[in-house]
């Protein structure tokens, strides 16, 4: 047995052969069984471990300046954590940039704590300070659980980034000609057995943008939105989007604005 994801595809197909005799009924029952599995997993989301870690990191004096992030302004004033998640990405006057939760956190880590933001941006996911950025994002997202997405669109750059995000969403490229829209542009589609939310509109409460950060059952990792987008682009056969790059933030604005009114369930539990 290997616990890696390289279980031979054909073996799992053959294993299922015996159980599902034929047709639409079998298909439906398999999906119901998967729903049952997901329901059994809901009690005890390991994301809670990362949530607790994130709160601790926020309050602990860290970095060369040995201060906490208590004065970090995530959009609603220094130190305000509740409700910020459902209004990000947004324009920040101090950095004169559009920033999402994770890139904003890294800015705070640089200005308040003396970390090197460029170094953190270059660090691979799941390593070094990136682990802490993900934990922080998990806690901050959890502090807005149950609130509705309502990204600001008042500033000119916020509007421009929405339009740029829309263009990125429909950008067909790479060896497979895929765009985000290839999978997430229409209602009621599936890839393999996974339901694909239509991200050109509000896909519903706790779906799509309103579900990340999420704990991924398949690899036991906690992923923020940056890593979610990064892996979408990987599977899209696109080149590597920089951490916190304008492309990822613009895409976040497009998804977040489209999801206006959706209730956040982040941190969620995902496949």
């Amino acid at each position, binding site marked *: *047995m*290997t*616990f*890696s994801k390289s279980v031979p595809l054909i073996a799992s197909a053959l294993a299922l052969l015996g159980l599902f005799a034929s047709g639409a009924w079998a298909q439906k029952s398999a999906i119901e069984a998967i729903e049952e599995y997901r329901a059994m997993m809901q*009690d*005890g989301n*390991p994301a*809670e*471990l990362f949530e*607790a*870690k994130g709160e601790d990191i926020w309050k602990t004096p860290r970095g060369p300046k040995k201060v906490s992030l208590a004065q970090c302004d995530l959009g609603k004033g220094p130190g305000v954590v509740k409700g910020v998640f459902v209004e990000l990405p947004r324009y920040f006057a101090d950095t004169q940039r559009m920033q999402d939760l994770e890139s904003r956190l890294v800015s705070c880590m640089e200005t308040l704590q003396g970390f090197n933001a460029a170094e953190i941006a270059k660090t691979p996911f799941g390593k070094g300070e990136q682990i802490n950025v993900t934990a922080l994002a998990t806690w901050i997202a959890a502090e807005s659980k149950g609130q509705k997405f309502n990204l600001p669109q008042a500033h000119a750059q916020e509007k421009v980034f929405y339009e740029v995000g829309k263009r990125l969403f429909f950008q067909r490229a790479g060896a497979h000609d895929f765009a985000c829209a290839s999978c997430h542009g229409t209602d009621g589609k599936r890839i393999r057995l996974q339901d694909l939310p239509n991200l050109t509109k509000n896909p519903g409460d706790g779906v799509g943008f309103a579900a990340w950060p999420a*704990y991924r059952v398949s690899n*036991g990792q906690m992923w923020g939105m940056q890593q979610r987008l990064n892996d979408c682009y990987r599977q899209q056969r696109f080149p590597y989007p920089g951490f916190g790059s304008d492309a990822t933030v613009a895409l976040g604005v497009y998804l977040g604005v489209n999801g206006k009114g959706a209730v956040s369930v982040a941190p969620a539990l995902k496949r």
Partner: protein
Amino acid sequence: MADPMRIRAQAAAGKATVRVLMAHEMESGQRKDPAGKTIPAWFIQDVTASHNGKQVFSAEWGPAVAKNPFLQFVVKGAKAGDKIVVNWKDNRGDSRTDEATVS
């Protein structure tokens, strides 16, 4: 040091349901790194719990328990305000002890 556990203990009808999440890799010992070398097994192998200082629960686990383990058990006679302490020890000798109050 390992990250803290998350322990929830809720009393109802003269007993308390204890749910625990532990931060641990639970490396199976079956996986190989990109260079083809087997990644050594690293897993929690002993778990114990006490209720107001008295040990009530003990378990032994292998590497087939999933990463960031979840555990649920029910303590008889536990009520709101009681203390539940959970302890784990892994095969490298690392350990972790956390406490929760029954609510």
